[in-house]
């Protein structure tokens, strides 16, 4: 019942995938075969198969190739079952039931059981879990098995729970006595890991007994980590790889001009922010925050930092591609006079503050901060850019300095994004913002199954963050990927993340 409900509002988003930039001819029927070589900027020697510690896009792509989750975000942004054949919630959205697909085989020949699912979820919620998704996992009060069904009872209602569980950390691994075994990277996914050198490469072979039809088209895949952007671009330009991600906005046009290469853009939820700690002076004053929001030239930043490959942000984390995006909200724009006005309201003649940034936050963060500083000067605001070392930025600077640059890759749902970063007491509440009304509707929206009411709630939340919140979100950045003509993409691709929701390995094929 819920599934049909959800579909109605998600469909609107499908057109937002930027697949339309591609030539028509690319949308041929998928064909099986070939060897794909892809170079990704992410991936490090410290990566491992341990689902608690997955952290980057490389591991996401790898995980989606070798493992399945209970649910999957489809290219059209709808949620559909993956290893869960069906799933449903009770009326209060606090009990969720997942019917586990039968006859699904792991790479090692073991058949998938509900016990595997329980063990895989439990791995993240046990005491002393080090998991990155511990907070999501802990929202589950109880897991039980009911025949082919796995039943999860939540502490609080959450209409988006099925979305949360689609997170790649919740990969389903084979288990024994309630303990999962992830050491060899064995899953139920479309590809078997032949070899994996952390920070270097993964070699995949197609899994002959993959359960999912019309999926996993390549025979073999070589997924490389190529951290050096120049090397990635050279590799795609010379045809040494078929896919290279994280193309710099500034070089994108040149990459596109190379023969046999085309760009693949995704306007997703990835956004940059300058997070003010609202408990510290001068950011305690809402007018100061507003003054700073009007003192940034967002168009210039998109142009210069993103090379035009992105869009302006409106000081909240919800992308325009989201079904809950509040289009009616006033767009904050560069207006020195209004900035001055809010300064006066705050009883100040000028503001002098420090903005901490490092390129570890996002590429060009220091330059973005410098641009910010220059545009703010016209409004009489003196922003000193404090350049910080990349190493240790997240630990020492972010959330420790009153105002610092930050980066969010986005979350699949508005709820997840808000809960993670804006709810009071949320682990990553980078602005230390604490708004009762916001917290109240955030929780209410989770349990609200009426779409219209829900949308209104999310619109209000965006407005609250927009008007009162401590984050300046100047821009949403596109993901840019270089593709060689050897690679074909489907007509509709996901825009919740880079590279077709990072499920390109099972959704794309050789041309």
């Amino acid at each position, binding site marked *: 019942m819920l599934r049909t409900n959800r579909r109605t509002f998600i469909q609107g988003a499908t057109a937002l995938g930027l697949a339309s930039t591609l030539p028509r001819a690319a949308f041929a029927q998928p064909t099986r075969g070939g060897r794909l070589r892809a170079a990704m900027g992410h991936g490090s020697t410290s990566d491992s198969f341990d689902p608690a510690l997955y952290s980057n896009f490389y591991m996401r792509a790898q995980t989606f190739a070798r493992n399945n989750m209970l649910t999957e975000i489809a290219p059209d942004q709808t949620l559909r079952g993956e290893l869960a054949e069906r799933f449903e919630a009770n009326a209060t959205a606090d009990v969720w039931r997942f019917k586990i697909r039968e006859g699904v085989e792991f790479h090692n020949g073991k058949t998938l059981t509900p016990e595997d699912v329980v063990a895989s979820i439990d791995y993240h919620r046990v005491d002393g879990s080090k998991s990155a998704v511990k907070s999501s996992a802990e929202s589950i009060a109880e897991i039980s098995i009911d025949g082919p069904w796995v039943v999860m009872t939540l502490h609080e209602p959450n209409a988006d729970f099925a979305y949360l569980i689609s997170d790649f950390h919740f990969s389903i691994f084979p288990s024994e006595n309630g303990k999962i075994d992830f050491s060899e990277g064995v899953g139920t996914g479309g590809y078997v890991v032949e070899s994996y050198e*952390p920070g270097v490469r993964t070699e995949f072979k197609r899994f002959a007994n993959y359960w999912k039809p019309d999926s996993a088209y390549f025979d073999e895949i070589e997924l490389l980590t190529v951290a050096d952007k120049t090397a990635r671009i050279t590799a795609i330009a010379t045809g*040494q790889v078929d896919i290279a991600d994280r193309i710099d906005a500034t070089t994108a046009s040149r990459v596109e001009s190379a023969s046999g290469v085309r760009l693949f853009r995704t306007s997703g939820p990835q956004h940059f922010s300058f997070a003010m700690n609202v408990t510290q002076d001068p950011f305690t004053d809402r007018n100061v925050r507003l003054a700073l929001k009007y003192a940034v030239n967002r168009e210039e930043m998109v142009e210069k930092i993103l090379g035009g490959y992105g869009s302006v942000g409106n000081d909240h984390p919800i992308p325009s591609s989201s079904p809950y995006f509040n289009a009616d909200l006033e767009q904050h724009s560069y207006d020195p006079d209004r900035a001055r006005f809010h300064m006066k309201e705050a009883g100040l003649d000028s503001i002098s503050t420090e903005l901490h940034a490092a390129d570890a936050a996002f590429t060009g963060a220091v330059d973005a901060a410098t641009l910010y500083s220059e545009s703010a000067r016209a409004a009489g605001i003196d922003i000193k850019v404090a350049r910080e070392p990349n190493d240790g930025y997240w630990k020492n600077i972010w959330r420790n300095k009153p105002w610092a640059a930050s980066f969010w890759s986005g979350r699949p749902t508005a709820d997840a994004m808000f809960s993670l970063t804006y709810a009071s007491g949320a682990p990553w509440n980078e602005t230390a913002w604490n708004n009762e009304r916001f917290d109240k509707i955030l929780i209410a929206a989770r349990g609200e199954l009426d779409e219209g009411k829900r949308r209104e709630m999310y619109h209000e939340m965006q407005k609250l963050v927009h008007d009162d919140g401590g984050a300046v979100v100047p821009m949403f950045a596109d993901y840019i990927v270089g593709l060689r003509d050897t690679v074909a993409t489907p007509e509709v691709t996901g825009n919740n993340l880079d590279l077709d929701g990072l499920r390109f390995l099972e959704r794309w094929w050789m041309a």
Partner: protein
Amino acid sequence: MNPILILIAKRLGLGLLTLWFVSFGVFFAIEALPGDTAEAILGQSATPETVAALRKELHLNQPALLRYWNWQIAVLTGDFGTSLSNGRPVSELIGTRLGNTMFLAGMAALISVPLALCLGLLAALWRNSLFDRLINAVTLTSISMPEFFIGYVLIFAFAIRAGILPPMSAISPTMGLPDRIVFTILPALTLTLVVVAHMMRMTRASLVNLLSLPYVEMARLKGAREMRVILFHVLPNALGPIVTVIALNLAYLITGVVVVEVVFVYPGLGQLLVDSVSSRDLPVVQVSCMIFASAYILLNLTADVIAIVSDPRQLHRT
């Protein structure tokens, strides 16, 4: 031969002591680094809770000295431990990378050492000729250029313009030897250009230095022609410094090639070490540093032994 054995024993002992100091220094240097493995791995997604959990799992909550002690005991029993960040055995993790590093170093050495020796000999033979000046200027130039410059120029020339060699050298253990060689040519060539100058100039200088000695004049007065003078009379006496400089450069080929690894995306030990430092992966950093230091120590020892063996004055003390 006795003095040589004594020297080897002495130097090995000293080398072990150095290694111990290195391991000690590395351990506490990593301790001094801001942040630990737990924080490094969890990165932006770290919460105090999960960091604490991970720390406990990795035993990072134990006192540093105890951890160092345990590590040391384990290493002495041949167990290099497991990587903190991905839980793989360090020996396995480093093994592949070390193999790659050695392969690249070996290939670069195979090209550069004979080349440097030949050029050095010829330059000494035809000293002050046009050839000598030319080779001198060329090697000075190549020694003066940053590695990444040479690397990018070679990529531009051979991979982009000519399109005959791959720009990226992401070799894998499953590759066959011919493929490996093709993939490694460009980085090996880059390294060759970097080290050949040093070795060649040293070869030439060592030879030329001896040319003014009385026994060289004697060889000429006995009727030896220039080639014979250089090859038979001078070279045996110049071996010491030449071998030393070769050893130094071989050590460099193993230990100093991070930049080349970055430019060519070559999965070598240097990159692993740099990555491990940033993820504070102590066991990996430790073992990598020890490997580098041992390479340096062993190569220098070999050079010294060869220098002694080649010099009868040191070999047969009376």
